């Protein structure tokens, strides 16, 4: 991802009020990790599994620190149960920052990524998780603020799916 776009993404998270990020690193958006770490407004927690990222961020959110989870699209599959029982059934606001691999606009798409990419939105729909696809930096900050407002309003997870220019 372009360095300026990575910077805008992290600034956008901070300005939207996110103060906690758990993550499992991946390829497409990884430039945000050192920026998150360098910004003292974020508590940044690396994990071993995306399900764990969801449960840890759920605890942070219920403890009063607006929380996000950052992972590849595969993380939605891996953490689907925790997204359901913590995010939906218990009702915990959290922002999902998802590298939308395997999508049509994914610039690194291949036979390896396409299948999970194709099923990602149907999976989010089946979980009734509100989501927005971001292809480029147009109105990035507005979309991030809107997603955070939505997660607070419904007290459930909301997903931002990054593809296109974010996957360079």
């Amino acid at each position, binding site marked *: 991802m372009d360095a300026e776009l990575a910077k805008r993404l992290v600034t956008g998270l901070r300005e939207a009020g996110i103060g906690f990020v758990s993550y499992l690193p991946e390829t497409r958006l990884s430039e945000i990790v050192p920026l998150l770490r360098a910004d003292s407004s974020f508590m940044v927690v690396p994990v071993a599994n995306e399900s*764990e990222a969801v*449960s840890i961020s*759920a605890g*942070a959110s219920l403890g*009063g620190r607006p929380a996000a989870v950052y992972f590849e699209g595969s993380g939605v599959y891996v953490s689907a*149960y925790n997204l359901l*029982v913590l995010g939906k059934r*218990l*009702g915990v606001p959290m922002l999902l920052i998802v590298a939308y691999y395997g999508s049509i606009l994914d610039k690194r798409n291949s036979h390896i990524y396409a299948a999970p990419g194709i099923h990602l939105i149907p999976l989010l729909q089946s979980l009734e998780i509100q989501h927005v696809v971001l292809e480029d930096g147009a109105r990035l900050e507005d979309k991030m603020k809107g997603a955070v407002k939505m997660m607070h309003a419904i*007290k459930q997870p909301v997903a931002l799916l990054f593809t296109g220019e974010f996957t360079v």
Partner: protein
Amino acid sequence: MKRSDCYEFLAPRVTDQLVVGSLSGQRVEWAHVCPHEGNLLVASMGAALGVAVGLSLVLPHRKVIALESDGSLLLSLYNLPTLGNLNPPNLTVFVFDNEVYSGTRISEPSATSGNTDLAAVARACGISRAVTVRDLESFKREATEALEQRTLSFIVCKIEQTTGHRQIPRPTEDLWEHKYRFVRYLEKTEGKQIFLGRG
């Protein structure tokens, strides 16, 4: 050693600590023995420890207690390397290990009935104060120390399989109500707003 005896010992010692629990008999039993506003009983296998870790990180001045079971922890062993590296000093983890999936009602043995030693796994992940207790006196000693000290503690409690919780009425509170009770308690005791109407 019975889980209920351990709970009877713990309950009067819970004042302003936050208690995160998982599922099944331990949820019903703990809610009955200790109906504390700071309980967050998530009613799910494999999630309680992670939620407790998140709470302990953002509320470092509060003691957080996780009530886990062998089945729930085995489902989420990925928590242990993370926990060993984060090492939150305000977190105490109790794993009530009856060595069976008792909720199945056929008492299918769990891995801990065989060769798996959860305290050894925890130590190998960097949780230095990880012990196994097999009798009530040892439990009382380890629990007292863990609750008094500011050190990450991981206590595997070998317990009998019991069915006493099946005689206890299930909580009628639904999970959103339960969450709001917990959050309002935190807002009151922390003096800050947690749930925002808007971002």
